[in-house]
């Protein structure tokens, strides 16, 4: 008997059918991947399983018991834990308190027994192979450590089904391995893990079976042993899709941007150059100071010393608009807090960097706004029922496309992409790569910060590697090697 069964579940939102008569069953003790393009309905499905959204039809069967109109508490009682993509810990509380939030741990009516709580928390974290101290406050932890705490929380809850929504998107390569190890251990203990990811390699190396959704419909469930990469992609996108990095024929022009011994915001003595038509990859582990560098270049943070030269002149950017005026634009990595106006519509977000250009005598030309929005919704194939849709209601990947669209719409020609394809599906990735190529071919300079090794090797003309706020090396295309990059990224200088 399957431990969890989704039976004929349907969910409609105004203008979209997010799930259309979907049935999937999950066995005890398997790692079951859930895949599909952006907006396919994966997150919606898990929200329904977790009781966080009500379905419009169908039922969830947990250990043979049918649940209709399930609440989050019901789900938790039945042994379902979910780790959402946006982690949900309380930052100002300690690890131990987060682990046992809503739990009674010894003590009297006055309060919990904190000593006992810490002891048990330390045990849980040790079992996860981590030496995080239970009294550490959560905001001091890195994303991957926070994720471990979330997993720990699920273990404390004694979960039978652990659902993880794109858990690898926000953490570094080295940390992903550790997470895999833990997930496998959980499976061996009989926990069922539902694993959502857009990374195909990952799914092949970790998961036992995969279920695929497309446009809210269930397509198939396969054992990963019996299917190959191409087949998987075909099921997801519904057509053949070549996955090679598209050829780029760009001529390098003059130097577009030059950073000379730039210091500040946690970085030291950074030297970089990017030419017109070039894609410079910026590699490094999470915390290496790449985003911090990007923030200085785009004018958001003032450097302490050093120089930024753009288009042949030394520049001092007092704020982001100074940089934008010269044509330097940033596509920030954290779309929710830095890139999007979540409660505003698509036709506000996409032109949000361009309103000035779209106005005459201070009056915004709404026709041009609509035209620009439509242009980029088409170009990036952003899936939304209408351009009036509020961005909060888009799927994660489509939100990411909106962030990219907003910088492109601003006509910046020195572009800094900070993790441009995080959480984006295969097809959309190809579109973004092609777009970046087109941008490079037409003479734009691109700096690409990415934690995705394939993307780094496939897209860059040159790669600069950073470690703890310093540049540890630079590789030309001929010298690209994964090992060398990892070496430099962990601090072995030349």
């Amino acid at each position, binding site marked *: 008997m399957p431990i969890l069964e989704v039976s004929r579940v349907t969910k409609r939102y105004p203008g979209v059918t997010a799930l259309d008569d979907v049935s999937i069953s999950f066995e005890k003790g398997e790692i079951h991947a859930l895949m599909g393009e952006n907006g396919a309905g994966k997150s919606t499905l898990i*929200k329904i399983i977790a*009781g*966080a*959204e009500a379905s419009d039809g169908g039922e969830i069967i947990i250990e043979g018991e049918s649940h209709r109109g399930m*609440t*989050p*508490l019901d789900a*938790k009682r039945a042994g379902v834990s979910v780790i*959402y993509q946006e982690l*949900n810990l309380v930052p100002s509380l300690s690890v131990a308190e987060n682990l046992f*939030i*809503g*739990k*009674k741990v010894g003590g009297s009516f006055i309060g919990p027994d904190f000593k006992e709580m810490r002891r048990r928390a330390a045990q849980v974290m040790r079992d996860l192979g981590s030496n995080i101290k239970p009294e550490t406050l959560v905001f001091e932890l890195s994303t991957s450590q926070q994720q471990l705490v979330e997993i720990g929380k699920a273990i404390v809850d004694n979960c039978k089904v652990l659902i993880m929504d794109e858990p690898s998107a926000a953490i570094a390569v080295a940390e992903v391995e550790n997470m895999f190890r833990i997930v496998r251990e959980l499976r061996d203990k009989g926990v069922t893990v539902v694993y959502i990811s857009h990374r195909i390699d990952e799914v092949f190396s970790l998961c036992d079976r995969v279920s695929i959704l497309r446009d809210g419909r269930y397509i198939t469930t396969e054992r990963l042993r019996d299917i190959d990469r191409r087949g998987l992609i075909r099921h997801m996108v519904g057509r053949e899709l070549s996955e090679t990095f598209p050829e780029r024929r760009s001529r390098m022009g003059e130097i577009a941007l030059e950073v000379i011994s730039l210091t500040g915001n946690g970085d030291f003595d950074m030297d970089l150059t990017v030419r017109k038509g070039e894609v410079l990859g910026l590699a490094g582990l999470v915390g290496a100071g790449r985003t911090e560098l990007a923030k200085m270049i*785009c004018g*958001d943070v003032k450097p302490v010393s050093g120089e930024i030269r753009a288009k042949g002149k030394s520049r001092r950017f*007092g*704020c*982001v*608009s100074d*940089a*934008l005026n010269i044509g330097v634009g*940033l596509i*920030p990595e954290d779309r929710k*807090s*830095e*890139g*999007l*106006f*979540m*409660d*505003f519509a698509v036709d*506000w977000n996409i032109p*949000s*960097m361009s*309103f*000035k250009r779209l*106005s005459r005598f*201070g*009056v*915004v030309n*709404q026709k041009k706004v609509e035209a620009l929005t439509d242009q980029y919704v088409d170009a990036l194939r952003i899936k939304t029922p209408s351009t009036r849709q509020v961005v*909060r209601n888009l799927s994660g990947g489509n939100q990411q496309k909106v962030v990219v669209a*907003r910088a492109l719409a*601003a006509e910046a020609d020195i572009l800094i992409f900070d993790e441009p394809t995080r959480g984006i599906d295969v097809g959309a990735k190809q579109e973004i790569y092609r777009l970046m190529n087109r941008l490079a071919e037409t003479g734009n300079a691109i700096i690409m910060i990415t934690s995705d090794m394939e993307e780094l090797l496939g897209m860059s003309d040159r790669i600069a590697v950073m470690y703890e706020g310093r540049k540890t090396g630079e590789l030309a295309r001929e010298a690209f090697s994964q090992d060398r990059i990892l070496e430099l990224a962990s601090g072995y200088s030349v």
Partner: protein
Amino acid sequence: MRKSIDFCQKNLALVLLIFAGALFSATTANFLTVTNALNILNQNAYTIIAMCGIALIMIGGDLDMSVGYHMSICGVLCAMLLTRTGIPVPVIVAVTILTSVALAMLTTFLTQLLGIPRIFVTIGEATLFQGFAYVITNSKTISNLPIAFKNIAQGTLLHPSLTYATLLMAAFVVIMSFVLSRTYFGRQVFSMGGNLTAARLAGINVMKMKYIIGALVGFFLGVAAVILIGRTGAAAANTAAGVEINILTGILLGGVSIRGGEGKISNCVAGILLVALISNGMQLAGWNPYFQYIAKGVIMLCVLGFDMFQMRRRSVMNNRRKEEAVLTARQEA
């Protein structure tokens, strides 16, 4: 049907205003006359003018709690200059408005200097202004303002109840509606209220904008103060005390969120008028003024609650999780 429900939700204040208006016309003789309508507008002209500024601040994601004493201090300054010096009236009006602008920009400066939100700076300032207002007036009311000055607010055009104050208010409302909904400036204000970081990274000079918004608020409050004392013909330290509550309630009724990023001036006007009608109704019904405070407090809390409810609906996901934690805690305990 769906559409009309949607309309009512979005324009709640307007719908309620029409409803309240209908109720009064049915129960009170002579309510629904041009003269009465113009009188109501005239009485509220200064609140609506001040509202134009406060709505701007709120849509931009800030709050201002010093409105009342800010206006009072400008009012008494103006009245003192009028009665004790021989400076020409237009110059005094200009000086008053400029002082108001300077005060509001000072507030912006303090928010930056101290690094605390505008709401807290203005709570402190409210008391500060109150003190100054009492000190400079020596707690006396200044009356006998010159006719030339009173005419600015009381003069009429075309209809004996259509005052300059009302006309000015109408002009400001039209201009602000246009500015907020159609201009680049308006987009920047909404963007800042929607997500300050994203606004900054979109190239909006947030600092500069806060000063500009501050200056505009000062302008509107200065004009409102001039209109207020021009209409009543007198100024005292507590002339405008407490108007911030009426304005805030009106604006929230008008659909501006306390977190910023949304709102429409026309609905705010409806909100302010609704609050005015309710107070007016309570007066007509002969309610004890202290009960009126209670009623206003209840309305304010209801509106805030409604605002929170809408926010919660928006981030159901997040909140369900929190509720779930609380629930588990309760059940387990």
